[in-house]
């Protein structure tokens, strides 16, 4: 199969996936199209490097870097982040205490960017931890660990018990576990 034929086949599956990836990160219209086109242009230039069996993690890694670069460039203008966070704000009528979409998105927005990204990759983009590890450039074990920690922090932001997903008791104390301070190597 020559390169162009291969790229055309890649495009068929990658275009909808990358469009959804962009939407999941709050991009719409021309911004979303730029991200999709930018990612696919790089894939075209590097078509020999794109894995043939499962190209999506490779493409998401490229898209993630382009997206972060765009955020960095647009930080000066403040437009994308403002729009993105606005799109994640709770909607009128949402139950802030439950697992309504608005409450979940608001809880997501309160997490660090890294936590948000690993949760988006799994819950919104449908990647396995192994594929997430390819996108983030870490080991599958680390990806699972990051997902576990991000999920726990999401639960905490929603006022849920991280393990049982029940509303946390007002008397909840650190009886279940002892969490040490973070250790840096």
């Amino acid at each position, binding site marked *: 199969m020559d390169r162009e034929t291969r790229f055309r086949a890649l495009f068929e599956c990658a*275009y909808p996936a990358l469009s959804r990836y962009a939407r999941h990160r709050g991009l719409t219209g021309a911004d979303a*199209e730029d991200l999709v086109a930018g990612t*696919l242009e790089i894939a075209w230039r590097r078509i*020999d490097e794109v894995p043939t069996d499962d190209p999506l993690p490779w493409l998401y890694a490229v898209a993630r870097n382009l997206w972060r670069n765009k955020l960095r460039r647009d930080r*000066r203008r403040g437009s994308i982040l403002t729009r993105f966070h606005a799109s994640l704000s709770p909607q009128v009528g949402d139950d802030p205490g439950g697992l309504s979409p608005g409450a*979940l998105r608001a809880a997501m927005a309160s997490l660090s960017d890294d936590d948000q990204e690993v949760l988006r990759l*799994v819950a919104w983009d449908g990647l396995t931890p192994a594929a997430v590890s390819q996108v983030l450039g870490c080991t599958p074990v680390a990806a699972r660990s990051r997902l576990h920690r991000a999920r726990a922090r999401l639960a905490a932001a929603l006022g849920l018990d991280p393990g049982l997903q029940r509303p946390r008791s007002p008397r909840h104390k650190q009886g279940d576990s002892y*969490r040490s301070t973070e250790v*840096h*190597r």
Partner: protein
Amino acid sequence: MMALDDDLLTALRAARPVPETEPAASSPEARMMLARILGSGRPPGEPGRSRRPGPSRRFRRLLIVLPATAAAAAAVVLGVSLVGPGGPNAPGHSHQARPRTPAATPALRLLASVARAAARQPAPRVTDNQFVYVASMVADGTGPPHLRQTWLSVSNLCRAGLLKEPAHGFTSEPLPGGGKCPDRGSLGNPTYRLLESLPTDPRTLLNMIYAHIHAKAGGPPAAYQAFDAIGTLLRETIAPPRVSAALYRAAALIPGVTKVADATDAIGRHGVAVEFRYTTPGGECVFKTGPGHRLPPRSKIAARCAAQIAKEHAPPVTETIQWIFDKATLQMIGENDSDPGAYTKHYETAVVQRAVVDNAGDVPAGH
């Protein structure tokens, strides 16, 4: 695809933003995109074709007129300053700059000199209807360094500015303003008039910046974000000399800033730099207690944690922000921003020109 194995992730999946129309590769927009990409050039290795489009005409011209040509990029030797747990750089630390007398480290001496040099600059004469023009060369891993030009209203963001960055498809993109007019901007997107209104006492200024940033749990430490926020006020802006000086003096109050004796900007110009490094945690460890689980003795917790993290987690990632100054004039010439990732390692800029011009799109004579 993985089966989401718990209710929380399943609920989160249901909360994902859904496109208004399901994207299809057969849509007219998609077919146009495909044709555009295939027409843009050939992939590497294709015989008889260039690897990628060469630098634009403007880029070639700039290479000639730039005062400093790209020299061989020397390896930048970075002084490591690991940000440890707790302490002034940890998330959640008080965001107020406490009165203290910083030790005169090389970085603080450099920032003091930079502030003095900034204060000596002549104050620009500006009128409300003018624009701040900044041209820079940007290396962001997507190709060779490319030109980026911005024009921003001196006084009111509601007056459309302009962005030209053809390498990213912005040939003449209006820079939109905020909601309420007139809009002097904010600490995250300042106009000259906003910068002019900032306090010139460094500690007051830094406290204002700490109040502006929103440090998130698990995110970069407040000190890193404050350093980054000051960079935003210096990036693609012109500030009155006394405010520029105050910004550098405020940066000197942030613990953890170090000096880099020799740094290189996006087009290879050498300078002296200050930098802030932030190392993401390698992870956190959890010890279960209760029936069947015994908490390790306090004296062994750190070692056990380190072992657990070494076994289970990826190594920490270091992000770095550098401000590079010309060694002779001490003017800021560029900024390097590491962005660890699979394909893009750095975002580097080299400031080519700053000027106040009458109209968005005007380029000062000689450029």
